[in-house]
């Protein structure tokens, strides 16, 4: 890591600060949501569908209710309020009603004295399934019977697409989509299903409040949207449901949707006892949505000088059984399909379909990962076709402030795409290591498969971009509260913000912002909860630093003003307590027919990164070793540089995982590798050292000029790693994760 900034316990904006949760997490003292405990609590368990698609004619709980230790066995008929919920569209039953649409869908829930008793009771629930032919091929989904009655996502200003099982279709027409050029290259690219694979499984604790309401302690990404989905299903007012953030063991988008929140709350209210639920690892793989698998056709037309003339793309996303955030992922996959390049003509068509495969939704990169893998493969192909250096080709086409995107949106903020390309390309590539060397430093690693035989080296390059904050007219504001008190003439501050600390370091961002604005060291951060402050929006879309800093700065400045009004000091016992809500600049929807922006623009701001990768490949065994990664990333302003480097390295590792090994495998809609034995994530031997350069060109509209940092490394690293593998092997490698079979040519 190239961070050299000093590390302080108490820091202001721009200083590297040790994370307040770092030591407890490393020493094992940090309380994760799975560590929660309440006196007298029961354990909840979920009975899940063993079918990918089936009618449910009966759920017989009679035997289960009499099992030892059992306090409640509940089905859809026990859901007190709305029977369905959803992040964007309420198409998902709290508990299956008359049909199951994916493998692992919740059918019934049990509360018992001991988790084992709850599991045993769930085994005695008899569900009468009538299996249906599952829709598992997304290319045929629009010709099959609809999986959902009605059209859950129709309307909403989306393009009309009457075909069955369409979640959303977007068509972006830009310039003359038939424009011809000197050279044309095309390809078809595929991505498998990636899982967030967070280490902390879905878990939480629901405690009834004895007044009909409930407190839910849970690992989540957005407390208030959880509340707004949970309360209607419980038949309660939002204020009767208080959501409190429990220790989050990783999120990456996988905790945007609800998991056990409603179930635990139902069991707690039904039994009048605290109820804890913890998914096991296997269950976690069906307990949250995944990254959309995709099939992408792209055609790039360019002139001899390398200038892109026309990009045409068709993208098919498999959304799985429920909508989740698929509609927004569809928008991102299409909006960023042409990459961070200026192109005057484009035709992008993107459709996301319902199937009976595992449901997909938000995951780090959110549609841009899929598109980047395709557009960067195409840029390499184009460079080879034109005989132009791949870095030079990208520079000649790099988007810049003032340019217009295929959606018609003009880039008005900072966008140093050319700069990140130049900086990443300028990083010195390490010399090849001598042989012989330790097997751990060769492809195959500890498997001891080569002493250098079959090993070839390759260098790859990729660039990618996406937006920061929510888009298409969604106002994702953030609230913060600052409370000033005085004791012994010393001022102290308490900050409240419901931003979810999911491992990204937002707690430090909040404290650094408050210390900077209040010019105080004595600042503490209250627990994140819906009961003390307004919504923070989601820890998603690389938005939380920008939005939390914006809200805390507003509230702190308001507190400062009030303090000044009172003469600059507080008497002991006197307090100032202000809450402020920060909004980013408004966005507007895309035109459903043309995919062009209406009004100000669909996106708030853009972030980009460039990456150079050195890899070694054993071309006879298809095994790989990524040797080194150099990257330059557009970060606006690094609030906590050490944390930014951490996000870059972690994000790269996640994209590298998709490039090389991470895939949920299915057979007829059933997951066949739901464990960390067979769903492989990179180890320290798979992840290379990273040289990262931060490019700080402040975003004009953002507090301190910050941008988001969490997603660009993941967007780019998948494409960059595969680019290096192509260079080493000379093969096209059009699908990720790249399989050893493809490398050796089977």
């Amino acid at each position, binding site marked *: 890591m190239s961070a050299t900034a000093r590390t302080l316990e108490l820091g202001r904006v721009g200083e590297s600060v040790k994370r307040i949760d770092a030591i407890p997490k490393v020493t094992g003292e940090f309380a994760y949501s799975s560590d929660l405990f309440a006196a007298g609590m029961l354990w909840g368990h979920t009975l899940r569908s063993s079918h990918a698609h089936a009618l449910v004619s009966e759920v017989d709980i009679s035997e289960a209710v009499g099992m030892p230790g059992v306090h409640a066995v509940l089905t859809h008929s026990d859901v007190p309020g709305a029977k369905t919920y959803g992040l964007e569209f309420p198409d998902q039953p709290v508990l299956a009603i008359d049909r199951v649409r994916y493998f692992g869908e919740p059918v019934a829930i049990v509360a018992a004295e001991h988790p084992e008793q709850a599991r045993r009771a769930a085994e005695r629930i008899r569900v009468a399934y009538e299996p249906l032919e599952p829709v598992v091929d997304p290319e045929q989904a629009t010709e099959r019977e609809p999986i959902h009655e009605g059209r859950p996502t129709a309307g909403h200003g989306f393009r009309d697409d009457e075909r069955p099982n369409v979640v959303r279709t977007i068509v972006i027409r830009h310039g003359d989509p038939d424009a011809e050029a000197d050279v044309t290259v095309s390809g078809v690219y595929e991505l498998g299903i990636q899982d967030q694979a967070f280490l902390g499984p879905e878990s939480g604790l629901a405690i009834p409040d004895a007044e009909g309401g409930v407190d839910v302690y849970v690992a989540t990404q957005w407390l208030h949207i959880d509340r707004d989905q949970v309360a209607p299903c419980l038949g309660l007012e939002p204020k009767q449901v208080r959501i409190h953030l429990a220790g989050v063991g990783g999120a990456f988008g996988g905790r945007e949707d609800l998991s056990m929140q409603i179930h635990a709350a139902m069991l707690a209210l039904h039994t009048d006892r605290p109820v804890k639920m913890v998914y096991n690892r296997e269950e976690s793989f069906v307990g949250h949505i995944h990254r959309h698998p995709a099939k992408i056709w792209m055609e790039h037309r360019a002139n001899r000088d390398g200038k892109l003339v026309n990009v045409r793309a068709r993208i098919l996303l498999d959304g799985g059984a429920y909508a989740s955030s698929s509609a927004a992922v569809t928008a991102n996959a299409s909006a960023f399909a042409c990459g961070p390049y200026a192109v005057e003509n484009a035709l992008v068509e993107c459709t996301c379909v319902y199937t009976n495969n595992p449901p997909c939704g938000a995951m780090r990169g959110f549609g841009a990962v899929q598109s980047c893998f395709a557009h960067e493969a195409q840029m390499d192909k184009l460079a080879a076709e034109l005989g132009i250096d791949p870095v030079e080709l990208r520079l000649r086409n790099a988007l810049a402030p003032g340019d217009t995107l295929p959606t018609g949106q003009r880039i008005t903020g900072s966008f140093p795409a050319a700069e990140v390309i130049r900086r990443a390309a300028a990083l010195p590539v390490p010399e090849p290591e001598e042989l012989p060397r330790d097997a*751990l430093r060769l*492809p195959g690693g500890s498997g*001891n498969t080569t002493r250098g*035989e079959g090993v070839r080296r390759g260098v790859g390059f990729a660039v990618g971009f996406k937006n920061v904050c929510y888009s298409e007219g969604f106002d994702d504001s953030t609230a913060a509260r600052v409370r000033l008190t005085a004791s012994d003439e010393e001022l102290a501050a308490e900050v409240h913000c419901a931003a979810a600390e999911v491992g990204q370091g937002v707690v430090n961002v909040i404290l650094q912002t408050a210390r900077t604005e209040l010019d105080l060291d004595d600042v503490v951060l209250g627990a994140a909860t819906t009961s003390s402050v307004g919504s923070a929006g989601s820890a998603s879309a690389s938005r939380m630093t920008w939005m939390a800093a914006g809200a805390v700065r507003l509230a702190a400045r308001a507190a400062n003003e009030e303090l000044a009004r009172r003469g600059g000091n507080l008497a002991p016992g006197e307090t100032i307590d202000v809450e402020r809500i920060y909004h980013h600049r408004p966005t507007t929807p895309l035109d459903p027919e043309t995919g062009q922006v209406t009004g100000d623009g669909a996106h708030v701001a853009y972030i980009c990164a460039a990456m150079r990768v050195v890899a070694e490949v054993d071309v006879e*065994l298809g095994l790989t070793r990524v040797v080194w990664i150099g990257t330059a990333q557009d970060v606006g302003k690094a609030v906590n540089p050490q944390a930014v480097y951490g996000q870059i390295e972690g994000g790269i590792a996640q994209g590298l995982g998709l490039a090389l*090994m991470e895939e949920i495998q299915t057979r007829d809609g059933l997951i066949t590798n739901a464990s960390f034995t067979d769903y492989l994530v990179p180890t320290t031997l*798979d992840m290379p050292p990273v040289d990262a350069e931060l490019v700080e060109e402040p975003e004009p509209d953002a507090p301190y000029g910050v941008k988001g940092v969490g997603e660009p490394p993941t967007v780019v690293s998948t494409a960059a790693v595969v680019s290096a593998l192509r260079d080493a092997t000379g093969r096209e490698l059009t699908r990720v*994760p790249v399989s050893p*079979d493809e490398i*050796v040519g089977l």
Partner: protein
Amino acid sequence: MQVLTPRSLAEALRLKAEHPGSVPIQGGTDVMVELNFDRARPETLLNLNEVRELRGWSRDNGSIRLGAGLTYTEGMEAPLAEALPALAEASRTVGGPQIRNRGTVGGNLGTASPAGDALPPLLIGDAVVELASVRGERSVPLPEFLTGPKRNALAADELIVAILVRPAAGPQTFMKVGPRNAMVISVVSLALTVDRDHDEVRAAFGSAGPVAGLVQAPLAELNGFPERVAAAASPIDDVRGSAVYRRKSLRVLTVRAVERCLQ
């Protein structure tokens, strides 16, 4: 669930006879996975961690005698690692340090997975498994002990006590193919030795058939040996890899292993 913890081999054998359905557990690196995933719920676990006779290793009349409780970490340490280099290399590929501290060679035989990393190195050392029960002791050659995928020749009242294996009589090596560079279950593996004492090359493969398999040939027939090893395997397609890839890789591994052992 009941956990029995005998303090001696005699007590362990008596308990196993009294509880023939009990599942022996040592490191727990396989058994606990089965329990955690709720794939097995034995009435009784027979905890062998306190049975001193199963620990460590010794030289025994020209052979090496490995206690069933020998851990992979112990397998990586000199001087045992010098006597059985392929077993040491295989041990290094098992899990991470914590797993290697707990997992045992005896457990690998008990599980009898075709992917068991210790099996190919033991096969090329002509390993013989010592089994015991209250009825007495018997010795079973490893190829006969491995009766099928996750099946072995243990009777319900028997325990694995030790493995007798020939020390290396020439260079040997172990290689394991997996899609990540550490902590992976083998997609295909190979142990190979060029044994000049017996004028033969012996190779054993894992994850390429229902059981780990042994192939041997006179040194004069080294040239066609990689093809013979590949032909002896009967791999399948599963979530970890394709049959065609496994067979091809086995040929590549054999070529490389022969070259390594001849250097």
